[in-house]
């Protein structure tokens, strides 16, 4: 008898011995040895023997962006509890009222983008575009993030006041200093919405995604190519708070793909478009296909 056959026989024998123990059967290691569970239970814990999705014994893990979103939520929860920095970063759940002011946030973000660009240029006495590495870009990014977050989570009028303050700081003259990012990011926050009572409806998710995209798009127009990396980072982060299969996720993925395409990053443009393509939504999928076509054309040009 071959070694394999002997091993199989031993496995069956051990399995039946355990099955004969009824409820006391210790099956974890045996299931792994048989290949029903692909890795040691200590590392894998539960594998789906049961689901009908057809993934059988494969090791199944949540996708990395979900991990990131969850860890970010934990950090936000800590900040909220300890009061170190009351920044509610869990934006997946918002009340309808909070979402309703989202559109306003986008306009505010645009104004801020324009304002900061103007201040930056004024301070430097230059009318040229600021390179991507300029720390001011970081301020734009943070300001946009905070504004988006603020206005989605609270009264839009307050954010408008912040935009005005940022654009025309108190005592602002021709040489007014550029606000620091701490100044821009400092803001009182409203209480967060209880996630158990206020899940976003698909329509609200869409408004959220459209709002984020609109803000990013307009900020790009205002500040130019230099803010692309910051805007992409922002979109990526926002995307982590949309349910993965949702239109919201698809729209932001598509936005990321377009931003990457704008920046000439064909590899990421294709990767994001592929992710958008997985969302079951005609508009998103059509847009994703367009990006993929563009990428293909871009590749073609490069090869030539």
């Amino acid at each position, binding site marked *: 008898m071959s070694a394999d056959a002997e091993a199989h026989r031993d496995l069956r024998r051990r399995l039946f011995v355990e099955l004969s123990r009824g409820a006391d059967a210790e099956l974890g290691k045996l299931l792994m040895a048989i290949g*029903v569970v692909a890795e040691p239970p200590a590392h*894998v814990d539960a594998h789906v023997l*049961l689901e009908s999705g057809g993934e059988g014994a494969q090791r199944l893990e*949540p996708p990395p962006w979900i991990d990131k979103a969850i860890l970010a939520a*934990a950090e936000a929860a800590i900040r909220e509890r300890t009061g170190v920095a009351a920044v509610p970063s869990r934006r997946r759940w918002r009340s309808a009222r909070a979402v309703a002011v989202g559109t306003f946030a986008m306009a505010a973000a645009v104004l801020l983008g324009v304002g900061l660009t103007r201040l930056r240029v004024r301070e430097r006495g230059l009318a040229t575009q600021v390179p991507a590495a300029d720390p001011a870009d970081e301020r734009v990014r943070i300001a946009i993030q905070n504004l988006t977050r603020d206005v989605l989570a609270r009264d839009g009028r307050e954010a408008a006041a912040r935009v005005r303050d940022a654009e025309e700081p108190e005592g602002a003259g021709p040489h007014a200093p550029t606000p620091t990012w701490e100044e821009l990011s400092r803001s009182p926050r409203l209480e967060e919405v209880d*996630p158990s009572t206020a899940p976003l409806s698909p329509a609200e998710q869409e408004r959220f995604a459209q709002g984020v995209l609109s803000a990013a798009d307009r900020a790009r127009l205002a500040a130019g190519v230099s803010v692309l990396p910051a805007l992409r980072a922002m979109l990526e982060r926002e995307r982590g708070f949309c349910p993965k299969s949702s239109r919201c996720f698809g729209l932001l993925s598509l936005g990321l793909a377009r931003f990457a395409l704008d920046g000439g990053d064909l590899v990421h443009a294709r990767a994001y478009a592929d992710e958008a393509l997985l969302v079951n939504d005609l508009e998103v999928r059509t847009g994703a296909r367009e990006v993929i076509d563009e990428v293909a054309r871009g590749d073609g040009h490069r090869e030539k």
Partner: protein
Amino acid sequence: MSEDPDEILVERYQKGDASAFRGIYYRYRVGTFNFILSLARERMAAEDLHQEIWTTVTRALFDWKPTGSFKSWLFQVARNRCLDHIKKTRRFQVEDDGEDVIENMPAVVPERGDTLLREALLSCIGQLNDSQKEVFSLRAIENMTFAEITEVMASAPGLANRRMQLAVEHVKRCLESKGIRQEP
């Protein structure tokens, strides 16, 4: 990954240590995800539920007290949310018979092990009813005690044990009916 017990990690998290949460999360992320998947039966829904459940956990943990097993509590939270989801989506139906499980198996053949036995075993497990599958999964894969399973499933004492007994008996009979027997 941290070797600290769950209770210590939770305590550190409650005091504001984000790395402690990371330790807890990475200890249970695969387990909970697969448990959720086993109930939700659809990958995308499971991903959404996973994110939602753990996001809830990040907040609820601040009020958690070590009066019972953290693992039981966590799985109970996951289970309750999944059942809510199932009720809402009205998809709580047994879809998998053994043949489907076999047909849907990935084409990957494990390097080790007995393929025939593996397929038969998956088929037999696929024939268990939902409650039995859940207990079987928690017991055999999650290595939970019956007390923990009882807590997770909020069931009557002894019921988990009984379900596991029935599940194992069924699997054994099923394997024998497929010609797989303990060889002398």
